[in-house]
């Protein structure tokens, strides 16, 4: 009896439901467009998912710690724009380390700002990071102006041309290269998963997300832990923004704005609770996969791409409602 119940619970758990939804999505897409079932789709999906995945992991860490960060797109924009601006004004060296170093340094500065506002001054995280966002974005354009850098410095261009594998479509002869930068989200996921599970740092983040007061009584340093979450988020988001510039050949002051919606959607769909303490790397990966699938392959279902925003909203809504229903179901099962 108990085994049966456990099996049923497993089959109707949130991750499994995500997998069903994705399977159905792919099935319909494949039936409508047989071309969907080709390595090319997979490679495109991977390429499109690189940034979403990295950003989502950053956001996940903050959400688990009981906060939220909506400032990373703006911070990312500063981090991708400033190094290019410096380089184009002859103030930088042409080195991958320089670009990524400057980007991450910028991330660090804004991460500290977020950390001070949220953990030290105890401001509501949403409003505080929204303020950081406008400070970053407004300040950037005010000081450095707005233009688009579309040509990469040679060092980044070299990075861009390194591919893991290249798939050539036998029918059309199109080439689909898979960039080496795909390894960044892969390693990031592995490392963050290990940290969250096997270090006191990770468990501390879960602990403060679950109950701040209990964490304080137990002897966790709540302020430091929150600081780490926000700094990690900003620094990694900045590095991700630099990857974006490399892959997209573009660096503008507004490229990433609005991205926070999709990222938060991916986290929530993947099982993070905005109240903190819940969420996992595995779930977030599923959430990102679903969102990326919906974003990039809507037309495969015969829905015009102009409905993409709406579709993402719908996925987020259903994800939120689903997790609420799941929580209620577990509550109904009674206390033990």
């Amino acid at each position, binding site marked *: 009896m108990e085994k049966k119940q456990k099996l049923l619970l497993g089959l109707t758990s949130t991750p499994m439901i995500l997998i069903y939804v994705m399977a159905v999505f792919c099935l319909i897409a494949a039936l409508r467009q047989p071309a969907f079932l080709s390595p090319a789709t997979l490679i495109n999906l991977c390429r499109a998912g690189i940034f979403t995945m990295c950003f989502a992991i950053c956001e996940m860490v903050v959400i688990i710690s009981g906060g939220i960060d909506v400032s990373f797109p703006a911070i990312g924009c500063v981090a991708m724009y400033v190094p290019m601006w410096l380089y184009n004004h002859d103030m930088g060296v042409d080195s991958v380390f320089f670009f990524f170093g400057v980007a991450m340094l910028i991330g660090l500065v804004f991460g500290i700002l977020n950390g001070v506002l949220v953990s030290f001054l105890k401001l509501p995280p949403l409003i505080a990071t929204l303020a950081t966002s406008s400070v970053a974005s407004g300040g950037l354009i005010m000081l450095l102006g707005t233009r688009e850098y579309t040509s990469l410095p040679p060092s980044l261009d070299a990075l861009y041309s390194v591919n893991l594998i290249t798939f050539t479509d036998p029918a059309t002869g199109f080439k689909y290269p898979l960039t080496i930068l795909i390894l960044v989200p892969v390693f990031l996921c592995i490392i963050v998963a290990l940290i969250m599970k096997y*270090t*006191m740092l*990770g*468990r501390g983040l*879960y*602990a403060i997300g679950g*109950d701040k007061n209990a964490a304080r009584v137990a002897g966790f340093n709540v302020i430091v832990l929150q600081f780490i979450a926000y700094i990690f988020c900003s620094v990694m988001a900045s590095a991700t923004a630099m990857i974006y510039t490399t892959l997209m050949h573009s660096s503008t002051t507004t490229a990433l704005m609005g991205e926070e919606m999709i990222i938060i959607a991916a986290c929530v769909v993947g099982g993070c609770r905005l109240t903190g*303490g819940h969420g996992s790397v595995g779930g977030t990966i599923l959430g990102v996969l679903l969102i990326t699938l919906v974003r990039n392959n809507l037309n495969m279902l015969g829905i015009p791409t102009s409905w993409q925003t709406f579709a993402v909203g719908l996925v987020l809504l259903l994800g939120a409602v689903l997790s609420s229903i799941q929580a209620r179901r577990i509550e109904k099962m009674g206390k033990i």
Partner: protein
Amino acid sequence: MANEVFLKLSGIKKSFGGVHALRGVDLEIRRGEIHCLAGENGCGKSTLIKAISGVHEPDEGTIWIDGEEMKHMKPMDAIGKGIQVIYQDFAVFPNLTVAENIALNGELKNKSKFVSWRDVHEVAARAMSQVGANIDPDVRLERLSVANKQLVAICRAIVNDAKLLILDEPTTALTAREVEKLWAIIRSLKEKGIAIMIVNHKLDEIYQIADRLTILRNGAYISSGDISEYDQARFTRDMTGHDIVEDKYAPEKSSEEVLRVEHLSRKGSFEDVSFTMYRGDVLGITGLLGSGRGEIGEALFGLAPADSGTIVLNGRTITIKSVSDAIANEIGYVPEDRLTQGLFMDRSIQDNTIAASIRAYMKGGKLDEKGMEDATNRWIKEIDIKAPSPKPAVRTLSGGNAQKVVIAKWLNTNPKLFILDGPTVGVDIGAKAEIHAILHDLAAKGIGIIVISDDLPELVQNCNRILVMKDGRCTGIIDNSIDEVSLGKMLIGA
């Protein structure tokens, strides 16, 4: 070893902004004893715990732990000395598993950087076998019952090598069976030489478990000694500063029926409860936690409606399926937890007073500001709420006055039936008597008053009839000629 003193306090004084919370407290706790700290609410028990655990530094006085004088003690020092406090909310993590909750503090104490899940499970299993707990270590804590959460908190405390375990009101949220189990665990810990201090104010429970007793009143040390030195009279006198009052509530007999409840049931809460109240009656409902005593009140007020049964109020049969049904039928309800369920702490006395009756002040499409203010002023005068005007926020009031505001909120709806769950919890003695007088006045006016409480002396003195609940069933309705000790025995079914 048994008589060796582990913790000694002498002349502890502590004040907050001119308010003396502790005015010279002495306390001695020996190894391997179960020591009860008793006192009415607001006597300084929680401040004393915080002084012992290093959260508050006392203004004056000395603390010796294990014979060593402690100066400027911090929480970590106290933990290092083996003092573990289990607070009423347990301070556990709802989102983490049982095993992790038990082992996490130890890992923190060792300053380890990494988590070995094998160790975590081992530690948890060891701790659970020590106290005889049997909980699935991989279940998230949010799924546990209160009793099991408490077990986890106890496991966590002994993992950290506790020498003195302090439990703050550990039985308030436990059912009778769970209390028995807790006592068994505590006795087994005592066998292991751990000193235990229990904060409690229920005489029957203290007799069951304590070896020695210390009583505080109003922040001052009153008396201390072996449990055998205390009889009921001395206990009450030391607790309250008064002798037992013998005048019990006795209304004039009346045959005018106010409320009749027949075969009221709610699945999983209570079954087949019937009673009748006449004009002037104050009905007490008591029972241990989980006996269904509070659930009857919630059902009558529509918070958790009954599945079946009839309710006849003033000769009219009514159905209550929601709170609005209850209010439409002129029923008022003072909830158990004043702070989170009863009051809007940051709103004014006026807002709180009219919260349940605001619709009555809609006049000509507009709220009648003056009417609301007048009504509030009237209640301030009538039930003697100590406040300069209707405007200050309720947060600024004392417990007793805040409770009067909750009462005023419902009186302002002109209730025909008034249910109060724990009406005098956290209320000082003076205000307590005033609240009881208000209730007796109302009963005399023909309003049905139901007092739900586990404070047996209060019930015996202030209700003329008492309904006893056990395991969801009514085991008897008795008049108040019973004394509280026999009533206490009835509760556990002895």
